């Protein structure tokens, strides 16, 4: 992929050495954002504060201060991250005009490392979706084909990276929302182990699967950003200890690694042209000396149904805070307390949010809780056990990120279920809490294809090692 940006490590080095200025970099980013505005990847631009921060960084460099591993690097954040300098909307009318009272830990960490947030990227409202068509504001266009979706829900973030607006963007992945748009747009999308990166200050969707992660052009860049993002946070009690070797300086994995090809991801429903690209990549791995093994996780076909019970259940809980009382849209028509709740939510929420809230309410309601919610949680256990068994036979599990390439805008809008099926290969990693990456491989009919690699929980370093090795191999 052609780019105007150096690798992130080099950008930071040159800024620290005074060879590049943060101001020039931020200006470059803002200019590209402006030039590519017809793709509608961006909801809000943080120009003045970003330039102010950039000037401040340049002044500190001049004084000989150490800025950090991301010195002067511009980045774009999905609009479900709380960031100062622009509204945080989650692409929903119910949060239009909402000003973040504090920033997400992830944003604070990136800023402490010298990075500068320049814009907020478009998403499916509240991250509910696989195409960014559920944004209450507008649909982002795929950088490779303007008639197609960029994938979702982090469609704006993935498009922004491929459109060269910034060296990296932040996304969130609850059922595939980083990996899928990365796959559709041709970027690298990383889903860390659940708990590796703090979710504090990120608008919650499904709290038992939500993760945040970087979208970049290269695996090397992802590793560097992950290094800065990861680590226990007292503000997020679900964060875990990290690998103290960090995620950079990745050695070549020893040969052979056992690469498990997931049988269930190669059945009916997988587009033939996508299969061709994935098979070609697996053949390359074999030629490189790795051992290819076929693994089966018999419960995988149930993962999507499981996810579409658990996720809406958690969504219905997490979205109950949007009540028109303390922040967000509050209906002026409301006369009674109940009016405030009902009218604000009715007028503020989009259709998909309402759909998911109601499904969640149904599966959690008395009489149905055991049959749906508890059952789904038990299937989740089964799936986790099958992953553990598979990881005894293989060090990594691979397959396509999605069964298709980017579909046309409007194609799946009439059928919510058809839209949900796009996630069929990504949800399992979220249910199991394991890390997964999507890297671009050979295009199918000139559209980007994502190759997905998964590793056991907390094996993020191993995963990045293999992905990095494949990236070098594919050059």
């Amino acid at each position, binding site marked *: 992929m052609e780019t105007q940006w150096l690798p992130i490590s080099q950008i930071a080095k040159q800024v620290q050495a005074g060879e590049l200025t943060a101001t020039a970099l931020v200006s470059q980013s803002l200019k590209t954002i402006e030039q590519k505005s017809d793709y509608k990847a961006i909801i809000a631009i943080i120009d003045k504060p970003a330039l102010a921060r950039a000037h401040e960084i340049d002044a500190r460099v001049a004084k000989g201060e150490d800025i950090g591993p991301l010195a002067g690097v511009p980045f774009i954040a999905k609009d479900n991250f709380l960031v100062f300098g622009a509204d945080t909307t989650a692409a929903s009318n119910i949060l239009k005009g909402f000003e973040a009272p504090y920033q997400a830990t992830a944003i604070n960490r990136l800023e402490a490392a010298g990075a500068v947030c320049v814009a907020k990227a478009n998403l499916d409202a509240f991250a509910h979706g696989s195409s960014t068509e559920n944004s209450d504001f507008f649909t982002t266009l795929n950088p490779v084909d303007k008639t197609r979706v960029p994938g979702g829900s982090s469609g704006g973030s993935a498009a922004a990276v491929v459109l060269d607006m910034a060296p990296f963007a932040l996304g969130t992945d609850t059922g595939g929302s980083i990996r899928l748009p990365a796959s559709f747009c041709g970027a690298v999308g990383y889903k860390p182990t659940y708990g590796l990166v703090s979710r504090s200050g990120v608008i919650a969707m499904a709290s038992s699967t939500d993760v945040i992660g970087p979208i970049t052009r290269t695996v090397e860049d992802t590793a560097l950003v992950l290094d800065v993002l990861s680590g226990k946070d007292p503000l997020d009690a*679900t964060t875990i200890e990290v690998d103290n070797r960090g995620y950079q300086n990745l050695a070549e994995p020893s040969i052979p690694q056992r690469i498990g090809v997931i049988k269930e991801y190669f059945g009916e429903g997988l587009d033939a042209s996508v299969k061709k690209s994935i098979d070609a990549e697996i053949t390359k791995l074999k030629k490189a000396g790795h051992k290819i093994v076929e693994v089966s996780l018999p419960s995988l076909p*149930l993962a999507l149904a499981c996810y579409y019970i658990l996720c809406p259940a958690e969504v219905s809980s997490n979205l109950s805070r949007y*009540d028109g009382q303390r922040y967000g849209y509050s209906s002026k028509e409301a006369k009674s307390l109940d009016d405030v709740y009902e009218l604000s939510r009715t007028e503020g*929420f989009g259709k998909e949010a309402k759909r998911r809230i109601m499904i969640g309410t149904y599966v959690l309601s008395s009489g149905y809780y055991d049959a749906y919610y508890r*059952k789904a949680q*038990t299937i989740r256990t089964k799936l986790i056990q099958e992953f553990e068994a598979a990881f005894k036979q293989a060090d990594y599990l691979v397959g396509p990120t999605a069964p298709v390439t980017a579909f046309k805008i409007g194609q799946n809008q009439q059928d919510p279920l058809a839209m949900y099926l796009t996630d069929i290969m990504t949800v399992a990693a979220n249910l199991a809490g394991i890390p997964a990456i999507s890297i671009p491989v050979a295009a199918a009919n000139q559209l980007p294809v994502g190759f997905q690699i998964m590793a056991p929980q907390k094996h993020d370093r191993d995963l990045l090692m293999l992905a990095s090795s494949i990236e070098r191999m594919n050059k």
Partner: protein
Amino acid sequence: MAKLSVTDVLKLAKLSKIQLTKAELDEFAQELSAILEYAEQLASVDTGDLEPTVQVTGLTNVTRPDEIIDYGVSPDRLLKNAPAKQDGMIKVKRVLE
């Protein structure tokens, strides 16, 4: 079990504090039924005596000392987005009749 009637959807909407038009009620009844029917495939799976998974970190009882921490966020900032305020408090409609 999964065929939702308009009455069912109305009940769910009420519980979710959302109002729906007649057209939306019909539409949602169909869409939600289809989604739930898809999810029904879980019902026939034998999960023996497997325990439900509630979270995947394995962490329990993560605590911190009971001390005040200054996060540098002022009450003014936190109240900035409130639709109605009075004397540093959020103003709401009458709660008790």
